[in-house]
């Protein structure tokens, strides 16, 4: 097989995979008697058409950046961490325990403490599968899947029997104190203007106190932390001794051992970082949006992290772009569910197709491209 030029491998392969996924999705829509063009228009308007729409798209993207990075760090060590969902739910538990523990004086302090709680609980949930993989050779894919289900059961138990305040019906924790509220985009001074509400007459709408009113969006300061996490993961993986050890171990375990790298140490560290990143997602959805812990809080973001990491070719920059793409897909899918007859589940199909084409059928795309480049080279 012809070796592809780097630019084609990095840029063209994911692009073609994405196009194939989009084409199959369009085919599915045609098959159920819907118009793909109409669907695309609704999705673009609903996810990118206004600052309000972006407020949702970037909120989802924030979660996906964390879970995508989590999958990536493990991937570089040759580990496939499917447990992001469970780790993110445990991260949510960490956030809830921190936020409910103290009357926090300021959101910045609460945020730092909650980040610590989220990372700690997420990492702890990844630690057991990591240890079993390193010490006993238990396949990490299976153990992390099992831990997702165990996490779900544990959280149902805790929410129903322990964290639920007296007299409340739904299985959820108490609301977090107002002092633990993270600033959302419409509360950040330089962004505020984008979300101002206007009346039909084009004048700004004012509330009872005569202050301008703003649209509520869930995107919050966590977005900035997610960007920071991208940079830190990039530095860690490509510019530190640890990152080198992780990547060396992932490429060839034998060579890494020969170079004096301890498999136990690398598996543990890579999975702890991975779990911590997945857990950190909870400051976006639990602390930044729902402001209490609910059942199934991660709502699939842990799994989308797999698609994001594959699409982003396991590079933080790629992950950022892929996370925004999936944020668009998620918010656009919600718009479809609201405005058309197309069920919201379309986004699950597209997500699956993206994983299929970028993660499992990538060789097919490479073979096709390889044939094309070989022909070009011959002429």
């Amino acid at each position: 097989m012809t070796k592809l030029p780097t630019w084609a491998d990095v840029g063209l392969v994911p692009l073609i995979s994405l196009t194939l996924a989009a084409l199959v999705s369009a085919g599915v829509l045609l098959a159920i008697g819907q118009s793909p063009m109409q669907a695309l228009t609704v999705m673009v308007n609903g996810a990118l058409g206004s600052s309000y729409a972006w407020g949702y798209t970037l909120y989802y993207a924030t979660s996906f950046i964390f879970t995508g990075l989590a999958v990536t760090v493990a991937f570089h060590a040759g580990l496939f961490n499917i447990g992001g969902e469970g780790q993110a739910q445990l991260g949510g538990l960490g956030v809830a325990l921190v936020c409910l523990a103290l009357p926090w004086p300021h959101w910045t302090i609460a945020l730092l403490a909650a980040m610590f709680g989220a990372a700690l609980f997420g990492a702890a949930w990844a630690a057991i599968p990591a240890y079993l993989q390193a010490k006993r050779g238990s396949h990490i894919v299976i153990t992390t899947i099992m831990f997702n289900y165990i996490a779900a059961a544990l959280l149902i138990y805790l929410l129903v029997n322990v964290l639920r305040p007296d007299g409340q019906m739904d299985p959820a924790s108490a609301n977090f104190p107002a002092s633990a509220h993270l600033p959302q985009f419409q509360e950040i001074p330089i962004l505020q203007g984008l979300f101002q509400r206007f009346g039909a007459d084009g004048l700004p709408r004012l509330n009872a106190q005569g202050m301008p009113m703003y649209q509520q969006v869930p995107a919050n300061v966590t977005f900035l932390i997610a960007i920071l996490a991208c940079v830190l993961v990039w530095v860690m993986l490509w510019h530190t001794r640890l990152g080198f050890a992780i990547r060396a171990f992932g490429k060839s375990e034998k060579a890494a051992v020969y170079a004096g790298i301890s498999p136990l140490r690398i598996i543990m560290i890579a999975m702890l970082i991975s779990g911590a990143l997945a857990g950190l997602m909870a400051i976006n959805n639990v602390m930044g949006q729902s402001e209490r812990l609910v059942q199934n809080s991660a709502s699939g973001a842990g799994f989308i992290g797999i698609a994001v990491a594959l699409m982003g070719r396991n590079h933080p920059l790629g992950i950022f772009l892929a996370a925004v793409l999936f944020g668009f897909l998620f918010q656009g899918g919600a718009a479809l569910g609201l405005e058309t007859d197309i069920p919201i589940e379309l986004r699950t199909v597209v997500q699956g197709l993206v994983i299929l084409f970028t993660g499992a059928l990538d060789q097919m795309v490479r073979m096709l491209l390889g044939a094309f480049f070989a022909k070009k080279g011959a002429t």
Partner: protein
Amino acid sequence: MDFATFLQISDTALRFATPLLLACLAGLFSERAGIFDIGLEGKMLMAAMSAGAVAAMTGSVLLGLFAAILGSLMFAAVHGLASITFRGNQLIAGVALNFVASGITVLIAESMFGQGGRTPPLTGAARFANIDLPFAETLRAVPVLGPFYAEVVSGHTILVYVALALVPISWWVLYRTRFGLRLRAVGENPASVDTAGVSVVQLRFSAVIIAGVLCGLAGAYMSTGLQAGFGREMTAGRGYIALAALIFAKWRPWQALWATLLFGFLQALALRPDVVESMTRVAIPVPFLDALPYILTVIVLAGFVGKAIPPRAGGEPYVKER
């Protein structure tokens, strides 16, 4: 727990164990041939929807069963294409197919029936009828075994008995036929099979197709036997429990039966927390019972109860030497 309650729970356990057993045997064939199959869940879901939809339209459960196998086979074909032909990552292919199945079943059911992603409730010939085994009533008088035969063993749909019969059949195929020997060899050391002049690709594809058919049966049982119609996400992680049972059974057919019966029993117990509480005299939270199959699997995986060693070439695409 008195005897009547035990019989009742055992009866439910056998119903719950059936889809697990079928899916577990599907995984057994696939993984013994060296193809890891995370996609059991997706194939079952697709089959359940196909069976529910076709049975609702035609009123014939057999056509529904046929559709279920076809639906599951379509997914199996994609899995085979990705992991055998194009040597892609088998685990990722399985995860991807689970997502596609989770969404597309709702999309299709919604566009066909417009009932929020469900298929219409099935009645009469559109469902598998319960079969009373011969002499069930006559033998009831026999102490202990009589009621057990009449209550637990008898009175299930044909698919339950098919699943049970498939256990010795799978054992025979895997351990007593040439095909079975080659299938196991291809999961341990594909190069040796290739050297002997047998096609690795063909063997692995037949394993994936067998897995597809078995998942089809499992899915059909979900929507036309266990329940009357398809509902979104109705397999509820059973594909993963089957995967867990497969590890618990250490990739062997008879052990697969015991493992799925155990997990089916745990699922049945989770529906009766009152019984559990009266037995143990402490309140055991239901979520704990739900999580028990997964916890047990982790313990087995950790090697505390014997060692679970997967087929050696599992998960690796085979590249012919040049």
